[in-house]
């Protein structure tokens, strides 16, 4: 099998493909209740679509129909333009990456051999496989030497990463991931999620991701498909839409009572309109500062240095002196960055017990002040959907 | 009623029918019925051989396994030693023992015992090893020291494996004990080798069938014992 020429009829190797479910249903035996009921979803190329729902809602079954691990009863699934039904299952699966919860690394092959499984099946030449393995190990953040070890010698988190690398090896058009981070402890799970998002920013695969955890869905998904028992689609929307406008009571319950707070995870500090605090320099006459205080949005002056970097807040006692002192009465407390997610910013504010926190840009210069009031105003108002969606995309990178 | 009579007639006609024996057919029912008594002794001898070998073998292998359970480093040695005894064909073993223990039942029992050791040792060891660590932990946490933990927790939980090992060992020993005839150890082998001189088909068939039935009987008895010893399993899944 030539290792450069793509298989006839399939899209070229470096094209990423869309995935579309067209009235897909799955029925087992003579059971009248379908496992998946008339599912219609389109996953655009390069997007992550998360299938989420309670146990038994058919999300895993739905995903597995995409690579014909489970056969479709009714309807069709289209990979790009072509139906998967007239593809040979084995060949189809080689074009898709497949990651399962228990990983399923081959204990009798080395890490390098595990990763190189599909390329080897496809007949790649040995040095091409080696190069690809090295590339992937670096991509997933593991040292190159690990390629010669065996799965039994790796930790759970490392094995999970190898599982992802193995799925990416032959540069698949679509990635299917079934609770890939489910078996990991929460700390490492968060790390792996972040790394996968970072990876996705680089390689932009079309991903179908299954999870039962709504928070993971909101964090990972460009679009989320909420499914309910009976295999029915309850809502298919972006995370922002899902949180702001749940389609029905089921979705509302599933998303959780704290969906307002969840929205805060979607916005960055720099996305909201910040307030201005009167700025004061060291050595400035306090009379000037006092004048600026009148009518200011933030009733406290912020001391900054010559680089416009915040040093602290000035108190009334400070203002009683003739000149602005070098060391302010109140320390800085919370200091925020424009790239911080609003949820973390709120957490910082609450931690310090302050109502206001200065916000700096990437170089550390003052950009504005964030107050708790700004956040609650944001939560109360139905912000323009496009703003939030756009912000959400930026959060996902 | 009408059809029964001709069949009975045929059977009566076959009783000790010299023709059947003369032609050395595979199975002569008449002869079997007539000569059933001659098999009683061999069967009894066979049972004695098997019971003695398996019981002694179990005692030894069980003790070895407990020793290795306590002192892990002994395990490879025991596995190797029992493995050698398992590998050597019983018939060779019989005659290796001959200069030392002579002909007779003792020699046969020693050799048959040696064969059972590895099977039982392996199964007891595996059974003990498969006891979940958290159960042992809970036991220790409740204040059980090593010995009570072993006898009250680990061994009962290992019973399924142990019984399985006993079954395999017993069935194998029943089959092997037919060779005891070569060292004058008695058993069903006598009917195959000595009495029938290896050519009397009916005799071979009967002896062989009896051996297989004996193995089956032992197996069923052990299964029943096993069920008794693990009622907790059935209750849990019931």
């Amino acid at each position, binding site marked *: 099998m030539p290792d450069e020429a793509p298989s006839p009829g399939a899209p070229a190797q470096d094209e990423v493909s869309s995935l579309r479910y067209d009235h897909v249903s799955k029925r087992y035996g003579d059971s009248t209740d379908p496992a998946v009921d008339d599912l219609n979803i389109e996953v655009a190329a390069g997007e992550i679509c998360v299938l989420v729902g309670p146990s038994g809602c058919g999300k895993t079954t739905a995903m597995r129909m995409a690579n014909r691990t489970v056969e479709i009863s009714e309807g069709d699934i289209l990979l790009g333009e072509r139906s998967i039904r007239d593809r040979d299952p084995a060949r189809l699966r080689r074009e898709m990456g497949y990651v399962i919860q228990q990983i399923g690394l081959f204990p009798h092959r080395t890490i390098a051999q595990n990763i190189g499984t599909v390329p080897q099946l496809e007949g790649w030449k040995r040095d091409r496989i080696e190069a690809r393995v090295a590339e992937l190990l670096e991509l997933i953040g593991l040292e190159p030497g690990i390629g010669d070890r065996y799965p039994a010698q790796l930790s759970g988190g490392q094995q999970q990463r190898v599982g992802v690398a193995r799925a990416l090896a032959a540069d698949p058009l679509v990635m299917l991931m079934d609770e890939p981070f489910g078996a990991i402890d929460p700390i490492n799970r968060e790390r792996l999620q972040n790394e996968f998002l970072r990876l996705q920013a680089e390689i932009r695969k079309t991903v179908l991701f299954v999870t039962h955890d709504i928070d993971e869905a909101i964090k990972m998904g460009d679009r989320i498909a909420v499914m309910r028992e009976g295999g029915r689609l309850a809502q298919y929307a972006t995370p922002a839409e899902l949180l702001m406008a749940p389609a029905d009571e089921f979705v509302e319950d599933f998303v959780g009572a704290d969906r307002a707070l969840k929205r805060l995870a979607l916005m960055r500090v720099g996305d909201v309109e910040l307030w201005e605090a009167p700025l004061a320099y060291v050595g400035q006459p306090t009379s000037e500062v006092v004048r600026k205080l009148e009518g200011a949005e933030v009733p406290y002056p912020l001391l900054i240095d010559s680089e416009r970097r915040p040093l602290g807040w000035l108190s009334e006692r400070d203002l009683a002196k003739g000149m602005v002192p070098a060391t302010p009465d109140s320390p800085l407390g919370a200091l925020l960055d424009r790239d911080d997610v609003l949820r973390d910013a709120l957490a910082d504010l609450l931690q310090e017990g302050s109502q206001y926190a200065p916000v700096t840009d990437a170089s550390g210069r003052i950009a504005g002040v964030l107050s708790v009031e700004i956040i609650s105003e944001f939560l109360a108002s139905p912000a323009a959907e496009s703003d939030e969606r756009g912000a959400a995309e930026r959060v996902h990178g | 009623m009408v059809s029964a009579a001709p069949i009975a007639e045929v059977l009566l006609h076959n009783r000790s029918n010299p023709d059947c024996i003369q032609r050395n057919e595979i199975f002569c029912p008449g002869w079997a019925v007539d000569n059933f008594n001659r098999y009683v002794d061999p069967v009894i001898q066979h049972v004695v051989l098997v019971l003695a070998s398996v019981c002694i073998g179990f005692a030894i292998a069980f003790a070895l396994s407990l020793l290795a359970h306590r002192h892990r480093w002994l395990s490879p040695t025991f596995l190797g030693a029992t493995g050698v005894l398992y590998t050597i064909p*019983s018939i060779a073993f019989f005659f290796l023992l001959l200069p030392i223990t002579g*002909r007779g039942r003792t020699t046969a029992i020693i050799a048959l015992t040696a064969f059972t050791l590895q099977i039982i040792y392996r199964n007891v060891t595996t059974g003990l090893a498969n006891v979940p660590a958290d159960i042992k932990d809970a036991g220790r946490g409740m204040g059980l020291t090593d010995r009570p933990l072993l006898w009250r927790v680990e061994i009962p939980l290992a019973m399924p494996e142990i019984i399985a090992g006993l079954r395999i060992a017993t069935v194998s020993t029943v*089959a092997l004990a037919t060779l005891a005839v070569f060292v004058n150890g008695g058993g069903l082998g006598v009917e195959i080798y000595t009495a029938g001189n290896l*050519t009397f088909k009916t005799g071979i068939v009967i002896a062989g069938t009896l051996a297989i039935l004996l193995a089956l009987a032992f197996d069923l008895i052990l299964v029943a014992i096993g069920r008794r010893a693990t009622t907790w399993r059935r209750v849990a899944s019931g």
Partner: protein
Amino acid sequence: MEAGGERMSGLVPHLSLGALGLFGDAFDFIFHQQPAKTGGGLATVGGLDQVGTLAVEQLKVTVLALGLSIAIAFPIGAYLGHRGAGEGMALAIGNAGRAIPELALIAFMAAAIGVGLGNLTMALAVLGIPPILTNTYVGISQVDRNAVEAARGMGMTGGEVIRRVELPLAVPTIMSGVRTATINIVATATIAPLVGVLTLGDFILSRNVYGDEGVLAGAILVALMALALELSLAGIQWLMTSPGLRLGRE
């Protein structure tokens, strides 16, 4: 040299001395030809030549029977294990095979269909098939299901899954079955002289021809051959087992 072990043992020290002497005679028998005890058509017995001939015959019989057993049992066990079907039958055959008395088997074979290498090989295969069938089935069906699912999901065909994943992982269990089969076959091949195929067992079974030292020599040789085969198979198993599987074991 009168064997003191004719009677039931009683005088251990006396017997040990006698036994020691007999072992010496046995080794002598292996290497040097000596006059036959009775006629039996042979003028001299013993010596490396005869030992070699009979050993080769035993080896030949064993290898043929083992080959036949593997050829029949392995594909069936592998197929059933891969599909996960027929567990009851696979296990039942394994259990039943254990209960077959080898003496009755070859005696019946000889009486029913006659003697000869071919018939003997088939009879020995009856003893060799059960352990291989059962162990192959268990080995393959108990392979880590996650690895198999991942393999299928990645696009391996059924045959590729068997060859690349299930078989390599099942090697230890399957080889264990092969070794058990070998032990059964070697043991029965030893008594093959009873049905006309002359193997090393002939030394053991024809005391009137070979004498007590011949009998003992035969026992020693058979034991050595069995051990040698077992070690070879253990070595082959070690070679065939992936290093990844040897990790994490005691």
